């Protein structure tokens, strides 16, 4: 059953696609993607932003954006994204039950991704932030082969094990000719709320060293802070709920760095 490679076709109405990826799980892709989307909106309120969660096995966006429920259909049978905090969101999590595992083999996953990419009524978006699953497999390949991607942001924690996987992630994007905008070093340092002592729980500055090796920029350095996780768990991401905090500001700066490195958008 050989169909050949799918032809790359832009998503209608979407100007630029930014993917947030990593090789490794659990480094904070979803947290970064969610806060990046909110930060892009906060930095420039004239832009319309969408957030697409293609982590079909572990979709975190619904929880983090405090959204739940099945999408309605538009007049032309497209799924309408769910809105919160001014961001249009779509996720596998809206299509399956909360405890239902998606135990599908590759082909079914691919057709689900196809649906999430092509059958959503996004309207006009300046930026679509795509939260990718961990790894370098089917989903990443399908997304890269299906739609033009303006840039990829790779998230990593400082430890070597995460960095090796981040390196693989960056390499994968290069293989499929997706520009890598840079690395985000997440969970970089923990500051004890009581005595202010700083501990590098996951090692120090590994992502910066990797960035140098790969000739990439570090787009942001996000500390390991209770507030970030708490606000995500509560469905009120920190850029929205505590915009004056240092952590939120780190995300706002990161969003600025991302925009600076995007190719000029087609008009």
């Amino acid at each position: 059953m050989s169909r050949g490679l799918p032809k790359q076709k832009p998503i209608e109405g979407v100007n630029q696609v930014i993917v947030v990826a990593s090789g490794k799980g659990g480094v904070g892709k979803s947290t970064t993607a969610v806060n990046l989307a909110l930060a892009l909106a906060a930095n420039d309120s004239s832009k319309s932003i969408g957030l697409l969660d293609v982590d079909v096995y572990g979709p975190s966006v619904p929880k983090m954006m405090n959204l739940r429920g099945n999408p309605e259909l538009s007049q032309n049978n497209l799924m309408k994204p769910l809105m919160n905090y001014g961001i249009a969101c779509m996720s596998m999590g809206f299509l399956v039950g909360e405890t239902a595992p998606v135990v599908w083999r590759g082909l079914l996953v691919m057709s689900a991704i196809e649906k999430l990419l092509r059958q959503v009524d996004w309207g006009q978006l300046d930026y679509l932030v795509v939260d990718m699953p961990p790894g370098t497999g089917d989903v990443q390949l399908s997304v890269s082969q299906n739609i033009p991607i303006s840039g990829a942001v790779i998230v990593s924690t400082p430890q070597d094990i995460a960095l090796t996987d981040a390196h693989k992630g960056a390499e994968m994007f290069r293989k499929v000719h997706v520009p890598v905008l840079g690395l985000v070093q997440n969970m970089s340092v923990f500051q004890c709320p009581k005595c202010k002592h700083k501990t590098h729980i996951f090692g120090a500055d590994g992502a910066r060293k990797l960035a140098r090796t790969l000739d990439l920029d570090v787009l942001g350095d996000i500390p390991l802070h209770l507030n970030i996780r708490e606000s995500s768990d509560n469905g009120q991401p920190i850029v929205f709920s505590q915009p004056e905090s240092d952590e939120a500001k780190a995300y706002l700066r990161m969003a600025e760095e991302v925009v600076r490195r995007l190719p000029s958008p087609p008009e």
Partner: protein
Amino acid sequence: MEPAASPGNLSGVRHILLVLSGKGGVGKSTLCAQLALALRHEGKKVGVLDVDLCGPSVPRMLGAQGSAVHQCDSGWVPVYMDQEQSVALMSVGFLLEKPDEALVWRGPKKNALIQQFVSDVAWGELDFLVVDTPPGTSDEHLSVVEALRSHQPLGALLVTTPQAVAVGDVRRELTFCRKTGLRVVGVVENMSGFACPHCSECTNVFSTGGGEELARHAGVPFLGSVPLDPQLARSLEEGGDFMRDFPGSPAYPALAAIARKILDAAQAPGPG
């Protein structure tokens, strides 16, 4: 010899334990490595099979990165951590030319390799085979559960971190186990709190209690909470033996207790 199980490379393996999580980055590979070390220190012969093809972490964690894999009559010879051959490893990491090489494969090719890893590694006599998996409930998981089914695994160890997004994903994994008939030996909550080395104040960076609550809700044993421990993180980077060298470190008691519970579960009469 049980007539039902196919003879071959897994016939000398007494107990097979799969380490699963719906969520990435919760510490599956770390748990696998520490369990292997802990069981070895209890005098057991252990194998670790790493079927995380996209992100094989186990070789590095056990100091075996860069080892070459050889063939023998029965198939692939596992990489041994030490002279006594008490810990045997197999991982796609050993087959890559460079450690940073990206394995960008689709499902069928991954499944084929997993089948080979299950049936073509000459494990010999082992007390435990611990299987490290990638996050999720995907092709790799279906393949490995199917391939291992006839060898009657002891069951699955589910790893989660305390926070809501992790627990949510692990709930899916529990359903996966139920649907595929895989017994859940227990749930481990990892990265459960961080004690400041300076003032000992414990901060629940990733929240607390989510794993225990999940276990209670699902009616499966809760095996313990492992705190964040920079020394453990360092040992993993360096491929050292944390269980031997750092018995005073915060994560040690919980990890040792989990290993003991696995031993108990293995000794208990089976469900069948």
